[in-house]
């Protein structure tokens, strides 16, 4: 549905997007992750044709955004950052206007408006000018506008920014539902958002794609390192000697004081192999009472930090 290859965009001397390539298939919800200023918004603006790339290919639903801009844009529903709206317009008047400009057939417009009003629970604010609405409702009107023409591809720039926790949960639920039949690409800098809504994430830093894959793949990507926390009732010197004999793990940090009865240590293991069993065998052979053996799961946040620093 979305095909991006070797995308590049400079603003003067600043390289905003540098050599990004990815594909998004139908029925996928993909999160575009990155710190502020990483190039998420620029990538989305290139996707929607608001900006023109210096180099590279952008295709949406098989149409090149540069060569067939109107056809490509017809397939896209776009919610720009901060949901810009006409504050003077009444909610349904606004939706009618956008529907007409998005090429919805005249006799379908009121049906589509009813659909999105129901979907985003906008019934209570119908009849009021958008300028009087709260941030949460404005965001929902923005989403309604993006879905009014039932697009194949939905591009959402920070769709949950400025919403309260309940609204965030609602919007994420809606996005997940939409994503079943459509292609959704959303940007965010909140990890939980990706964990909650996306099947796949693309991590961007300083204009470059530094990681991509399903959430599980990303968790393993990091530096391929896992850490273990091991405690045993044994003197430190003996414990350290036994651990040093073990291949594949190195002592990271002692978490207990030198003289304590129970020694606690954090180990780092490489190569993505699980060393849990080796650690257990070591303890059995050396005969220490093992009180704790835990593999620290790397959180997406840590992966993100690793990839973007």
């Amino acid at each position, binding site marked *: 549905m979305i095909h991006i290859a070797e995308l590049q965009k400079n603003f003067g001397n600043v390289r905003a997007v540098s050599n990004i390539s990815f594909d998004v298939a139908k029925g996928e919800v993909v999160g575009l992750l990155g710190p502020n200023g990483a190039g998420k918004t620029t990538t989305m603006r290139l996707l929607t044709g608001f900006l023109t790339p210096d180099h590279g290919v952008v295709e949406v639903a098989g149409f090149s955004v540069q060569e067939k801009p*109107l056809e490509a844009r017809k397939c896209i529903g776009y919610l720009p950052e901060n949901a810009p709206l006409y504050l003077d317009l009444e909610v349904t008047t606004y939706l009618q206007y956008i529907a007409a400009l998005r090429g919805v057939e005249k006799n379908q417009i009121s049906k589509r408006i009813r659909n999105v009003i129901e979907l985003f629970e906008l019934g209570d604010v119908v009849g009021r000018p958008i300028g009087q609405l709260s941030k949460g409702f404005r965001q929902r009107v923005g989403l309604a506008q993006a879905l009014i023409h039932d697009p194949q591809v939905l591009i959402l720039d920070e769709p949950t920014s400025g919403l309260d926790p309940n609204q965030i949960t609602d919007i994420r639920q809606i996005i997940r539902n939409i994503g079943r039949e459509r292609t959704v690409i959303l940007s965010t800098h909140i990890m939980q958002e990706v964990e909650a809504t996306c099947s796949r994430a693309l991590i961007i830093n300083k204009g470059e794609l530094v990681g991509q894959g399903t959430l599980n793949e990303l968790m393993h990507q990091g530096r391929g390192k896992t850490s273990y926390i091991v405690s045993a009732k044994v003197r430190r010197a003996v414990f350290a000697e036994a651990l040093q004999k073990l291949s594949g793990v190195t002592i990271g940090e002692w978490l207990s004081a030198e003289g304590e009865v129970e020694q606690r240590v954090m180990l780092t293991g490489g190569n993505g192999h699980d060393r849990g069993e080796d650690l257990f065998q070591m303890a059995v052979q050396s005969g220490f009472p093992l009180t704790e053996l835990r593999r620290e799961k790397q959180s997406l946040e840590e992966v993100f930090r690793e990839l973007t620093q």
Partner: protein
Amino acid sequence: MGAAASGFRARVRAQKTSRCRASKMNTIITISKREFTAYFTTPIAYVYLVTFLALINWLFFRGFFLMGQADLRSFFAITPWIFLFFVPAVAMGKWAEERKQGTLELLFTLPIRDRDLIFGKFFGSLGLIVAALLFTLPIALTAELLGNLDWGPVIGGYVGLTFLGGAFLAIGLAISSLTENQIIAFIGGVLACFVLYFLGSPLFSWGSGLIAQAMQYASLATHFESIERGVLDTRDIFYYLSVIGLALFANVKVLESWARK
């Protein structure tokens, strides 16, 4: 057989292009309507219209009863001056606000052509100017009631004012697309319109050299005066249409250099 097939193909093609054209027209009409009604969703339109009409009526009738002549010559002399401020005020927010609010980003990602968007804005705003002119018709009717009005120059004058308003508007819109600040757009628009209107006057062009003649030709006032005399010359119409066309073209280019860069 072959002829029938090619005839059929031609028909299909004709249908396709006409449908395409219809959708473009629809886009322009949709945007124009929105832009015209946008003036009335806030008190802006009423403030503009009341100010415009109060000024023109006061300035006109002040001299009209003294002169005791049933003609509108002074009306057509005063209105361009008021237009010089009224039209840039109508145009100032049109792009500046869209840029400031960020709504331009949405407009530029809709499946519409950039120039249709600009045409839509232009015709929607022109609607307000035409409405303002229609509200001055009682002035002409008063003159008709009190004396014997020669309608030829009056109709010519109104046509001329519409084109002049259109030219000021296109220039004002182009200036508005350059900035996010309405006040700057207004002042810039007034200045640009002022220079182009008075280009042929001794203020800017003196002597009778080639440059002076060119400046007189390029001046909006020169062409307005001949239309106002009741002479609808195609050359003057062509001139106004070219000014409007050039300004709108500049408008498209400015916005594209900002958005599609």
